């Protein structure tokens, strides 16, 4: 079914890099945010989501924990994988047998897959994946219709050093460790 096909396509690419343009619009199509950045992904469960514009934010998963660094406030927030609900889409993208898949049913239109939460409290997602496994875009859709869309470009496949998925906080960073509390 659509879910298996999506998982199958995602599994074709072991690791990739891409640049992205982000736009956030409200249900009535008002553009409220724009951003740009880069993304490194390595299966399973490794990703480095670097937002550069309008200012820097780094979101890194080393497969165990989840590091969100915001230089503007010199703060590093650490969460366990389970706690990081805002970033479930990347967890789905990077791990076909993640338990998170059970919380979603998947509908398909050509290369566009929609992931709808089975307990409708969660966000829904959309992701376009070509038969080759390459991701063209993905979006986070909220219940009120607010949509954060990521258009990917300059996708390049190929090995990525695990160093890319580690984070060392610069001196003076405030650590907000939210794991297991």
């Amino acid at each position, binding site marked *: 079914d659509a879910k298996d096909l999506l998982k199958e396509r995602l599994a074709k690419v072991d690791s990739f890099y891409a640049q992205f343009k*982000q736009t*956030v619009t*409200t249900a009535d199509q*008002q553009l*409220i*945010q*724009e*951003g740009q950045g880069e993304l490194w992904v390595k299966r399973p469960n490794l990703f480095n*989501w670097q*937002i550069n514009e*309008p*200012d820097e*934010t780094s*979101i890194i998963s080393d497969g165990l924990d989840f590091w969100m660094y*915001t230089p*503007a*406030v*010199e*703060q590093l927030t650490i969460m366990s994988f389970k706690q990081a609900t*805002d*970033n479930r889409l990347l967890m789905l993208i990077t791990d076909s047998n993640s338990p998170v898949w059970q919380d979603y049913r998947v509908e398909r239109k050509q290369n566009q897959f929609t992931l709808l939460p089975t307990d409708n*409290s969660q*966000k829904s997602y959309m992701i376009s994946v070509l038969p080759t496994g390459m991701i063209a875009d993905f979006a*986070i859709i*909220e*219940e*009120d219709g*607010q949509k*954060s869309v990521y258009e990917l470009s300059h996708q390049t496949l190929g090995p990525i050093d695990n160093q890319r998925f580690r984070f060392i906080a610069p001196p003076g960073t*405030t650590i*907000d460790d939210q794991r297991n509390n």
Partner: protein
Amino acid sequence: CSLNQSNISSNPILDWPQHQQELKQLTAFQASGSLAYFDTKSRYYGRFYIKQLAKNEYQLKLTSPIGTSIFSLSVNPFEAVLTDKNGEKYRNKNVESLVEDLTGMNIPLRNMTDWLIGYANNNDDKIDDSGKLSQTQFKQTDKIWTVTYRKYTDVKFHSNTIDLPSTIFLNSGRSELRLSINNWKIL
């Protein structure tokens, strides 16, 4: 190329009243950027979008860096309604306590319609050398907020342009708010 009137004006004290007059006409606008908040207990970062239709009538949306909603606020002179990220709605006449109760952030929203665009009218306001506000203060219940304007940018306004703030620091002694505005649009 057109002769651009240089930013350093001949007599800043004369230009400030003229800039004040222009700012008074500016009531409907959109602005977006990022917001960083510090107080003794917590630090906070989010992206904001504001759409003001008239004085004290605006919508303010706060999103996380990845674009998910944190809260959205709609305010009119009579009431403020805050919708949190799960869609729950909360109402209060006092917008500042509404936001503080829910997010822990004390943001001087009641004066925002002035400080966001760099308007003030006190005799101890500090004016920079190009006739724009560089620092002002205002009282919020038991606190004094100091607002410092670090950077301005010029924005299309009717057939001309107007200088509006792009970096604002607000400090109440107990908390600090830093706004960087990278997108202005006058409606």
